């Protein structure tokens, strides 16, 4: 159960990192730039971006003769939910006042 759960969380962390990078560079997020920002090779990044696009979290666009990525409304909702859950997860990991 645990072995099945952990990799999924890591993937979500990675997806969130990619989305944050694209979100903060509107119109200029080319694949090489995202790769430098996330610190991930372009071939692996392409797979991840393909998955994000399949789920409607990013979309590809042409901007100044270059292919760039944009975060969709659904992608922004994913980010909100991701960070909110991260905050709650952190809260649950805190010891309570009774030490339990």
């Amino acid at each position, binding site marked *: 159960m645990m072995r099945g759960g952990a990799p999924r969380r890591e993937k979500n962390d990675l997806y*969130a*990192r990619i*989305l*944050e*990078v*694209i*979100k*903060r*560079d509107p119109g200029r997020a080319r694949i*090489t*730039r*995202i790769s*430098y*920002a*996330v*610190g991930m090779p372009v071939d692996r990044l392409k797979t991840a971006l393909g998955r994000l696009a399949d789920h409607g979290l990013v979309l590809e666009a042409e901007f100044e003769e270059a292919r760039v990525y944009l975060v969709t409304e659904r992608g922004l909702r994913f*980010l*909100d939910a*991701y*960070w*909110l859950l*991260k*905050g*709650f997860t*952190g*809260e649950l990991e805190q010891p309570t006042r009774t030490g339990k």
Partner: protein
Amino acid sequence: MEPRHLPRGRTALGSVDGDVTSDGPATIYPATGDRIEVSGSLELEGDLTVEGGLSCDALTVRRGDLRVQGPLLVRHALVVRKGRAEIEAGLTAERVEVARLLRCGGEAEAREFDVGGEFRAERSVKAEVVGVGGRLDVLGTLTARRATAGGALRAARVEAEEVEAGGSIEAGQGTVQGKIDVGGFFESSGAVAFGRLRVGGRAVLGPGSRGGDIAVGGQLRSGGPVEFGDVEVGGLVELGPGAKGRSIEVGGRVSAEGALELTGRLESGGSARITGDLSALEIEVGGSFLAGSAVLTGEAEVGGRIETARGLKASRIRVPNRGFVRGPIVGEEVVIGKDSECGPVWARHLLVRPRAKVGAVHAERVEVESGAEVESAEYTGSCRVAPDARCRTAPQSVASLAPPPL
């Protein structure tokens, strides 16, 4: 004028009138003194190493890395299209664009920094706009109108109008006049002044921090006195002593070590625990409420236990059915719910619902309903006790009530 073409290997350059180019990796060093002066631009296809300082009109490295062992002054744009730029001393340019990594050992100043990967500044950075795809790390002061990082942003001190990061922001201290916007985590070790703070995950405010509205998805913590506007938090709020603000709305629980001063509401879906004195307009707490004392100008509505050392004062207090109150309560209108247990009460109008047990009662008008039990009752107006309710000592009509503790 023909540009000066650099051969491979090391070349001594003094003062160059015009442009400089190279097709491959090149190393240049000052022919005299410690600096090379180029009146035009440098355009390079490979790596460039400068063994000393360099000043030029523009500098472009198309492929490869740039390494400058002294100060670098570029009157227009410094562009490193695919690689890294490492400047051992200060960097001054109109515009800096680096694909992978920009490392600067001295002060860095430009109108705009645009770095795809990482920007590491060992001293301060001064710019109008700083945009970094990945990580921005400033060991000194970051001064900018706007600074953004897709990943993490860290600075010993921030002086900016707007700061934004996808992953996290860590700031020692500083002022952000407008918004701080972070997807993940925000932490300031010292005092940070801000216009607005929006954090997706967790925020930690250093002592002395003050600002406007705060919205946090997960948790908000502060270790010392802080000042804020309206706070909205999804998870939990933990405040240090001396917190002051307009209002707090939290989905989970709220706690304050010491006093908490609000001009507006305190609303908590879970519990609220204030070890010192709370002052607020009103409270709405879903779970238990614990405080040294609480003085409210409006209403107190608590779903769980109410425990205070010195009392709870509000214009209207509703103790829920099966509720429990420890410590005195003082209000204009007080309703003690069915099957509740409550200590002493001061009220203008007190209603004790069926089967509730109440301590000493001091009120203008008292109504005790069926099966309820009151330790003693003094009143200045009227006292109605249901036939099967019990008053341990006979209710006493008095000219004036015993003074309330709050």
